[in-house]
């Protein structure tokens, strides 16, 4: 009789993957990514959406095709093909997953991060993330109650092989756009991107170390921004006090791309998931996915301390707010939608890249959710949640629970 093993080989592989993601994430922040945002699936998909949404959708401050995401997609595709796990499949509640992805994203942008970033924020000393993770656990717990009662989003069907290449094809198009933008210095085709290192003054003028980006024709004179007509747009004090534009905070393109490729391949092989650990602990008393998350938190915390990026507390955390319910409630929705989708947003990106069209629907739902979030001013800022966020969360909770009851069949 063999003994029951609590932590098997999968736990160590997941732990190593989590550790690597944590270390990469801290290093990407050191190299220029926004604070505690070495990797954030929600934020980075939002940034990619912003490239297309631009000023019309109130997103131009974020516009940048994050190479981490593109790299993850391609890394996962290559790994899946190499290990003969690339399979075109779908038809398992694609519409539900699209809606769940949408709700997930709007909720994540109220908390200010996906579950991956919640763990990364925790490893950066941001205690607001602990509040969010408490909410995440509650949401996942509610999800497991539905799973036990027979929630199934749908049966998966095999599809013709070429259909599996939807996400990889989108990734290649994004990569081409990112490279053209990089070498061109500006986005092609009427799309928008934030200049690297861009800062914005209180008056709304945007500039980099080299030039004034907006308003057009303005220039830097003695530290002040002066318009073409000679009027001062922003004083030198205002320029000195300017803050970084989120989309302009980024690590070098190729570094981000290589980190993404490595993370994507490792996540495909190990099935790393940022919510599955809590789900499996509650549901089937398996803790291997939780070891992955523990590895991530340890990896990023240690490297943050090495790089001097660790800052314990609630106040003054990068891209975060301190509203208790504004951190807790959206993460309840994030946890619930993630369980209903069958995995965290990182897993959705990976599965989409393995040929899963339902996961593609979830990812596209997330990207559209980001457009809606900013277009309708539902996303939080450092000051706290937007006024519309509370109503939005009520509506989204009703829709999510509705999907839960609808897809729960009597066992």
């Amino acid at each position, binding site marked *: 009789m*063999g003994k029951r*093993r609590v932590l098997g080989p999968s736990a160590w592989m997941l732990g190593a993957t989590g550790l690597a993601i944590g270390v990469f994430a801290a290093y990407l922040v050191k190299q220029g990514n926004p604070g505690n945002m070495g990797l954030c699936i929600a934020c980075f998909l939002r940034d990619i959406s912003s490239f297309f949404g631009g000023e019309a959708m109130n997103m131009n401050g974020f516009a940048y095709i994050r190479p981490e995401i593109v790299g993850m997609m391609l890394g996962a595709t290559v790994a899946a093909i190499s290990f003969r796990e690339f399979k075109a499949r779908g038809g398992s509640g694609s519409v539900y997953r699209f809606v769940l992805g949408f709700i997930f994203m709007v909720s994540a942008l109220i908390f200010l991060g996906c579950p991956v970033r919640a763990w990364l924020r925790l490893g950066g000393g941001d205690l607001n993330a602990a509040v969010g993770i408490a909410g995440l656990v509650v949401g996942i717990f509610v999800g497991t109650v539905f799973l036990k009662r027979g929630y*199934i989003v749908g049966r998966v069907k095999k599809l013709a092989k070429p259909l599996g290449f939807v996400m990889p094809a989108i990734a290649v198009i994004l990569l081409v756009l990112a490279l053209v933008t990089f070498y061109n210095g500006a986005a092609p085709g009427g799309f928008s991107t934030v200049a690297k290192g861009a800062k914005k003054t209180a008056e709304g003028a945007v500039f980099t170390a080299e030039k004034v980006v907006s308003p057009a024709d303005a220039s830097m004179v003695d530290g002040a921004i002066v318009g073409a007509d000679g009027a001062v747009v922003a004083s030198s004090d205002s320029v000195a006090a300017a803050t970084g534009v989120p989309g302009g905070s980024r690590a070098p393109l190729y570094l981000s791309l290589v980190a993404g490729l490595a993370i994507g391949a490792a996540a495909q092989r190990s*099935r790393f998931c940022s919510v599955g650990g809590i789900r*499996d602990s509650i549901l089937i008393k398996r803790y*291997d996915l939780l070891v992955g998350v523990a590895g991530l938190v340890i990896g990023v915390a240690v490297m943050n301390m090495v790089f001097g990026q660790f800052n314990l507390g609630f106040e003054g955390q990068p891209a975060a707010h301190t509203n208790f319910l504004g951190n807790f409630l959206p993460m309840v929705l994030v946890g619930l939608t993630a369980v209903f989708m*069958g995995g965290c947003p990182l897993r959705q990106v990976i599965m989409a890249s393995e040929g899963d069209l339902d996961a593609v629907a979830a990812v596209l739902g997330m990207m559209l959710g980001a457009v809606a979030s900013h277009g309708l001013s539902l996303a939080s800022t450092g000051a706290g949640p937007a006024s519309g966020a509370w109503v939005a969360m009520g509506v989204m909770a009703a829709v999510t629970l509705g999907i839960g009851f609808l897809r729960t069949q009597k066992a």
Partner: protein
Amino acid sequence: MIEVDVRGFVCPVPLMRTKKALESGPAKIVVLADDGTAKTNVTYLLQDEGYAVAVTNDGDDYRIEGNKQ
């Protein structure tokens, strides 16, 4: 022998059903799956529960056979 067919399902459903099937302590269990993640997760679950596991490919499907050690 117990047979569990989880083709068409993605995790955590395959894991939940396999775990449930293991409650009776079968000497031999066969799990049919068609998803790479399910294959890996079920394999690790059975190994951790003390089964010797052999996986065979049947077209696009996986046949995961576990024998209690």
